[in-house]
């Protein structure tokens, strides 16, 4: 292999390395955005699910405050 071939191989190795670095940096730039959006979606969905579960409760349950109450919440939660 000639010196020219070696130089060409090195240039293309640098090219591949830089492409990988640029792609990695791009992913890193958006990492926290993805995490924030995923967290907001999950929390929002959980809150919406809990809220919508209240609508399906029987009137008696609603009056007693037991409807949709999380297990950790006191019985006075919905009163």
């Amino acid at each position, binding site marked *: 292999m000639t010196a020219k071939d070696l130089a060409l191989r090195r240039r293309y190795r640098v090219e591949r390395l830089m492409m990988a670095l640029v*792609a990695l940096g791009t992913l890193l*730039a*958006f990492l926290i955005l993805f995490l924030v959006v995923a967290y907001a979606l999950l929390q929002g969905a959980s809150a919406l699910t809990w809220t919508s579960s209240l609508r399906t409760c029987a009137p008696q349950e609603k009056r007693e405050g037991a409807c949709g109450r999380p297990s950790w919440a006191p019985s006075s939660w919905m009163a």
Partner: protein
Amino acid sequence: MVQKAFGAWPYILGTLIVSLSALLLSFFPALAAAIFAAEYAPRWLAQVINFLLDLMAAVPSVVYGLWGIFVLAPWLRDAVQLPLYMWAAERLPGLLPFLGVPTGYGLMTAVLILASMIVPYTAALARDAIALVPKEHREAAYALGATRWEVMRLAILPLARGGIIAGVFLALARAVGETMAVTMVIGNSHKLPYTLFGGAATMPSVIANEFTEAVEDLHLSALIAVGFLLFLVSMLINFTAAYILRRQERLVKGVL
């Protein structure tokens, strides 16, 4: 307790440390995103990246702050700070005073949150600056057998440098003035910020935290003085940016 003794040094230092560290941390990912969107990505992916960059700039800072409080700070405390603290306690006890108490809420968390918040500013301006480089420069470099990275390094980045620097300074100005997200995660300590994990305060965060308690004239005046200092720092950043851009324009005109 208000002791009627006021000094802004911890907040000035806190602002500078947090802003510059965030800038340093965000610069390379932002530049990578700009380069990837402008040169490497196929058109559809570039459009997605551009959309995400605009979306990132549009997320309110309080949302970042909330995520910082409930997700990032506890995770950093358990996965990064505590192990590092324990390691330092065993191997390098001399490092402990510089690490601080690993509570999760402090300088490190604020820097990380701020870094992710200022990425879109640097990236969007860098992307536009790269796109504005005349097509002939690229084509000439490709015609000479340059690889994509060589085209970027030799033909595009030198001409786009002015726009990239403008983006960096815009991001720095945003970082210096950022209030909500930083206030929520920085720990709000009034001591000089010499620890990595410990609490600190920035000029905007101390104003946001204390304006409701500033019932005495002196306290109020001290807060306004901090606001004025913040204004001076922002002005200094803008003047520096304008100077660098003018110098860069002259250089580019010399090349073209």
